């Protein structure tokens, strides 16, 4: 098991490294560098910068050094907890991102949790009562869930919320005072009241897939002799289904989180922009539109690293829960 964890950790580190290279490339891609952009910003606000000042700024930020030195400088400041300065906000990136990263985790986990909570009973129902009306309804809903991209779904939900209830369904809190207030029980309740809409929008496609897998796995299990034996021995129907077949069929629930997580995080970025959630999504969007590449690169790296760590944790949990994987890992 230790060997497996080490192997997975090495892959995780390699992945974060790959993300950091791409994020750095994104920072470097636009013509000009940080200082040119900074000077342009100053000039737009009326003040001018001399050539000497620009040169000293370049030296200060190390922009006169070769590209790999710049990359190493950029990466090493992360280790020291510095994330650079955002041009758009004129404040350290760390301050700008603030608790938005935490909110991203909340929204993502909320979506995954809701996916599990709903997919489990629906999957069992669809398998036990397969080819019933309910099964067809869920299959149809599932197909819609897979087919409609989540940002369009968010758009439609926004419109329906407005047209039917005349309410704004966006945001994670009732008011901006609530968002800025320190954490309390009221704030958590308020968050939970708003969280379910983005969670469903984000989780729908993953849920549809999970229901399909659960249904098919359980259908396979239900036909096996041990189920017939249990039933012949007079166990209650509840026990016959839930005690053994469901437990065996549950396996994909844990094993799929590894590759659903990147999709959910991806989706949360764009859904947050549409629904105006206080996650890193809208921040990344604004940074990209304003070509504030330092902020954008940092967000991309942080979101990527977060996803990789989440996947790593889920993989380790999987090995811990299901001993069969351990053998393959060796």
């Amino acid at each position, binding site marked *: 098991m230790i060997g497996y964890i080490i192997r997975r950790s090495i892959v995780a580190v390699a992945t974060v490294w*790959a993300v950091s290279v791409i994020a750095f490339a994104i920072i470097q891609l636009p013509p000009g560098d940080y200082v040119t952009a900074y000077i342009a910003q100053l000039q737009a606000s009326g003040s001018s910068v001399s050539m000497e000042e620009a040169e000293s700024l370049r030296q200060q930020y190390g922009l006169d050094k070769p590209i790999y030195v710049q990359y190493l400088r950029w990466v090493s400041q992360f280790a020291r907890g510095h994330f650079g300065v955002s041009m758009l906000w004129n404040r350290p990136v760390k301050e700008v991102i603030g608790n938005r990263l935490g909110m991203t985790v909340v929204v993502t986990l909320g979506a995954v949790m809701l996916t599990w909570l709903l997919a489990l009973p629906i999957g069992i129902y669809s398998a036990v009562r397969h080819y019933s009306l309910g099964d067809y309804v869920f299959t149809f809903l599932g197909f819609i869930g897979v*087919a409609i991209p989540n940002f369009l779904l968010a*758009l439609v939900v926004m419109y329906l919320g407005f047209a039917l209830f005349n309410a704004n369904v966006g945001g994670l809190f009732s008011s901006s005072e609530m968002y800025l207030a320190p954490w309390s029980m009221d704030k958590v309740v308020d968050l939970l009241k708003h969280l379910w809409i983005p969670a469903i929008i984000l989780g729908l496609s993953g849920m549809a897939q999970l229901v399909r897998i659960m249904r098919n796995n359980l259908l396979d299990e239900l036909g096996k002799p041990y189920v017939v034996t249990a039933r012949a021995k007079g166990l209650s129907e509840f026990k016959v289904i839930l005690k053994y077949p469901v437990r065996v069929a549950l396996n994909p629930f844990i094993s799929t989180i590894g590759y659903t997580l*990147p999709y959910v995080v991806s989706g949360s*970025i*764009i859904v947050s922009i549409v629904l105006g959630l206080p996650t890193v999504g809208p921040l990344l969007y604004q940074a990209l539109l304003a070509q504030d590449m330092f902020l954008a690169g940092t967000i991309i790296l942080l979101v990527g690293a977060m996803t990789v760590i989440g996947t790593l944790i889920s993989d380790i949990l999987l090995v811990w829960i299901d001993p069969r994987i351990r053998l393959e890992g060796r």
Partner: protein
Amino acid sequence: MSKKAVTEGAAAAEERIYVASQWQLMWWRFRRHRVAMLSAAVVAVFYIVAIAPEFFATTDPQLSEARRSLIPPEPIHWFDNGKFRPHVYAVAGYRDSMTFKMVWESDPNMKIPIRFFAQGFEYKLLGLIPTSRHLIGVGEGLEASDTIFLLGADVQGRDLYSRLMYGTRISMSIGLVGVLLTLIVGIFLGGVSGYYGGSIDNVIQRGIEIIRSIPTIPLWMGLAAAVPRDWSVVQTYFAITIVLSLFGWTGLARVVRGRFLSLREEDFVAAAEIAGASQFRIIFRHMLPSFLSHIIASTTLRVPGMIISETALSFLGLGMRPPAVSWGVLLQAAQNIQTIALSPWLMTPALVVIIIILAFNFLGDGLRDAADPYQ
């Protein structure tokens, strides 16, 4: 029918199945899948529109006119007093003296007849043949841009229906070109990985693992935002396609690798090797045809993903940019809740996106079932 005739008929049918080619068998099986057949027709219609959007459009998609801002949809009425006489009602607008908003009203007494294959604005069919015929239009002396608003108009008074037709070209073709790029990379890397195995396979598989564990949308957004603003429509188009394909090839590479791994052990490959066929010939003459159908099916299932990605990026203003017209660009107008609430017809492009995604999914499913020989 006598019993003998029935058995003879069955034997003839069996005979037909024995001599049918692989593609014929697939076609027969595919034909039984009603929804997939319907979806194939929908996809075909969309591609016909994508080839000649000018013919289906009623007005020039760039023709803006503040006077026509946000005219609501005005559907075609097919019958007039029980006779087939397609027409639209004339639209007249006035400014509300209280809110200063334009209010549009259609006048059922003013009927404007619709003509088919009518004269309209001039364009070049397929970029070659100059003509001014359009599928629908109005008679002499009237301008289509002033009278026909099938799906309403946007804020700048441009006809949404015509813009939707033009948007089909970019959105549908980006899906196709993007998937073609991923297919090339996927077949190459997946094939190398599956055919040679060993350490090359290991390196490529770890690479795929890494790419798949990265959330792609933030990366796409970052790369797309780095596309210079002053690039032309064509340059942006290709840049966006490449950005989308950059992380999209891993799924296909996995499918191809899996097929190669299982086929490598087959007798006919061993026979070809013993007969002294070159590697090139084994791969392209013997192995590729036997899983081509499967590749086509999984490629079809990947087109909607591309279309969604392009729509999402353009919707955010990071992908295709005006004056280019794509479904995502059109949806930009539906970005804020006020606009949607007041003029919900601006969301029609979303409906079109959903229809084509469903169609591609059903088509792909049908193709996959038809291509699966073990059923």
